[in-house]
C-alpha cells in the first residue's frame, strides 16, 4: 500500500463526508480517515525511529477509536441520527468539494516543496482536507458535524506535518496530539451540555448572542 494510494483514499473520505447526511456514517468515515493517516508515517518511512511508530499508534488509537466513541455517545445523548437540513445541500456540497480540490491543487502548484517530500500529493490532499474541514464546519448545523469538521481540518494539518516534516521533535508531536485530544474532548463535553440544555444539538439555538 503506497503513500499516494493512502493520500487518494484520504481525499475520497473527504468527498464522502461531504455527501453523507447520516451522522453515524460520517463518524465512521472520519475514524477511517484517522486510521489511514495513522498508517501514513509507517508507510512513508518504514524504518523510522521508535517514536514515529509511537506517534502513529497513538494517533490511530485516538482518531480511530477514542473520538468515534466520544461522538457516538454524544449522538446517543442528543438522540439525533442525521443532519436534516444543512445550510448547504449535499449535491452543492459535493460540487464545492470538487472546487476546493481544484483550489488545493492550485495552491500545491504555487508552493513547490523545497525540501524532501514523500509524495507530490501531500500538499494538495492536506489543503483539500483543510478546506473540506472548514466547509463542514461552515455548512452543517449539527454540533457533531462541526466537531467532525474540526477533526478533518486537524487531519489535514497532520497530513501536512507527517508528509513534509521528517524530523519534528517528539515533544511537539505529542503536544499537538495532546491538544487535539483535549480540544475534541472538551468539545464533546460541551456537546453533552448543549444537548442537555436544548435537548438537541442544532447550533441554530446557539445564536442568541449577537449585535
Amino acid at each position: 500500500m503506497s503513500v499516494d494510494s493512502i493520500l487518494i483514499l484520504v481525499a475520497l473520505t473527504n468527498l464522502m463526508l461531504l455527501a453523507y447526511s447520516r451522522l453515524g456514517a460520517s463518524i465512521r468515515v472520519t475514524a477511517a480517515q484517522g486510521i489511514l493517516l495513522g498508517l501514513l508515517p509507517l508507510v512513508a518511512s518504514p524504518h523510522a525511529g521508535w517514536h514515529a511508530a509511537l506517534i502513529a499508534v497513538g494517533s490511530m488509537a485516538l482518531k480511530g477509536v477514542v473520538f468515534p466513541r466520544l461522538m457516538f455517545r454524544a449522538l446517543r445523548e442528543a438522540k439525533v441520527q442525521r443532519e436534516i437540513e444543512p445550510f448547504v445541500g449535499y449535491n452543492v456540497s459535493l460540487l464545492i468539494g470538487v472546487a476546493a480540490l481544484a483550489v488545493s491543487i492550485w495552491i500545491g502548484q504555487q508552493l513547490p516543496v523545497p525540501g524532501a517530500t514523500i509524495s507530490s500529493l501531500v500538499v494538495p490532499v492536506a489543503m483539500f482536507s483543510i478546506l473540506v474541514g472548514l466547509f463542514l464546519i461552515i455548512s452543517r448545523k449539527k454540533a457533531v458535524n462541526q466537531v467532525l469538521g474540526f477533526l478533518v481540518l486537524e487531519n489535514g494539518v497532520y497530513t501536512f506535518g507527517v508528509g513534509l516534516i521528517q524530523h519534528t521533535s517528539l515533544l511537539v508531536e505529542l503536544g499537538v496530539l495532546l491538544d487535539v485530544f483535549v480540544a475534541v474532548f472538551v468539545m464533546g463535553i460541551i456537546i453533552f451540555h448543549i444537548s442537555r440544555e436544548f435537548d438537541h444539538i442544532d447550533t441554530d439555538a446557539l445564536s442568541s448572542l449577537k449585535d
Partner: protein
Amino acid sequence: MIFALVLIPTLAGLAAFLIRPDGPRRGLLMTTAVVQAALTVAAWIVRPAPVFGGWLALDALGLLFLGIISTLFLAAAFYAVGYLRHEEHQVERDFEEGFLFANAPEAVFTGCMLLFLASMTLVTVSQHFGLLWVAVEATTLASASLIYFHRHHRSLEAAWKYLLICSVGIALALLGTFFLAVSSAPAGEEAMPLLLGDLVRHAREFHAPWLKAAFLLLLVGYGTKMGLAPMHTWLPDAHSESPSVVSALLSGAVLNCAFLGILRAFQVCAAAGLAEFAQELLVGFGLFSMAVAAVFIFGQNDYKRMLAYSSVEHMGILALGVGLGGVATFGAMFHAINHSLTKAMLFLVAGNILAAYRTKISANVRGVARVLPVSGALWIAGFLAITGSPPFGAFLSEFTILRGALEQHRATVAVAYLALLAVIFIGMATPVLRMAQGEAVNAPQDRGGREARLSVVPAMALGAVVLLLGLWIPQGLTNVLQEAARALSKGF
C-alpha cells in the same frame, strides 16, 4: 527559574482540583499569584538563562508580556477571591431571563485559572514555534471552562463559539508552523528544529513563498485568537458572558499571548527581508479591526460587549503600530502594557457594576458614581485612559504611534487612525457617562457608598499604574521596550 515560572502554577492548578475546602484553595490562588509576580520581578531584574536547549528563554518580548500577565493575574486573583465569596451561594437567578442556574464547581474554576496562568507563562517563555503553538492552544482549552463558569445556555453558547472558532484558528496556526518548518528546509538541518534564534539567524536562506504562506497562516491563525477583525467574532460573546475577572484576563492577557505568536512570526519575516510584506498586512488588519470595532462600539448597549469591542480596537492599534514600524513599534509595545492594564481594570469595575445593578444594558445603569463612588470614579478614569486621554499611559503610546505614521508620511493612515479613534471615543463616551452620572436608578442593593475592599483595590492598583505610566516611564521599562522594538525592527 523559567521552569519554576511554568511549573509552579501548573502544580498549583492541579492541586486546586483536589483541595476540597474553599479557604485553602483561595489562599493557594493568591499565593501562587504573588509568587508568580515575585518570580517575574526577579526575572526583570536578572534575565534568567535559557534552559532546555534554548527552547525556553526570556527575551525582551517575552519578558514584557510575562510582566503584563503576572501583573494582571495578581490583580485578578485577589479580585477573584472577593468574587467567589460573593458568588458562594450555589443556585442563583439569571437577571436577563430569570431562570435559575448553578455555577461550575469552584475547584474547577480555580484550577483552570491557575492552569491558564501556566499556559500563558509558557507562551511567553517558549522560543520554539511548536511549543508556542501548544501553549497557545493550551490557553484556549484552559479558558474555555472559565467562560462556562455560569452554567446556563448563553455562557454555554459563548464557550462553544470560543472553542470552535479559536480551535479552527489555532489549527491554521499549526499549519502555518509546519509551513515555516518547510520554508526553512533550504537552510539545512540546523535551522529545522523551529527555534526562533536559529530561524532568525538563517532566515535569509529561507524559501520565500513558503515563508509568506506561513506568515499568512500564522497571522490568520493567531489573529483569530488575538481578535483581529474579521476573525474577532468570538470575542464579544466570550467577554460578555464570562465572569468579569475572566474577561479581564482574556482581554488583558490572552490576546497579548496570541499577539506574541504573530510577533514571533514577524521576527522571522523581518529577518528574511520580508518586513514590508508583513507590515502591509499588519497595517491593513490593524485599521480594519479599528473600523469594525468602531462600528460595534458606536451605539453599543451592552457595556461588557462594548469593552470587548474596544479590545478588538486596541489589538488593531497594536497591529498597526508594529506594521508602521519605526518609532511606532516602540509605541505598540508600550500600548500593549497600557491596554492590558486599563482594560483589565475596566472589566473588574464592570464586574462591580454588574454585581450592583444586575444588568449588562448600559441604558439601565444610572448614577454609578453615587451608588459605588470608587467604582464610578474608576469607571470614568478607565474610560478616559482607554480612549487615550492624557495624563494616562495610553495617550503616550497612541501619540507615539501617530508620530510613527506621520514621520513616514503615511498621511492617509494617520487620518484614518485619528478619525477612528474619534468615532470610538464618541461611541464610548455616550454610555459610559450616562452610566456614571445622574441619580441612581434601579440599583437593587444600595450599599450606602461602601464597597468591598477586594472588589475595588485591584482595579485601583491597575489604574494607579496606568496613570503613573502616563506621567513617568521607568528607565528599566524603557530599556526593555526599546530592546523589544529593536528585536522586531531587525528581527533580532
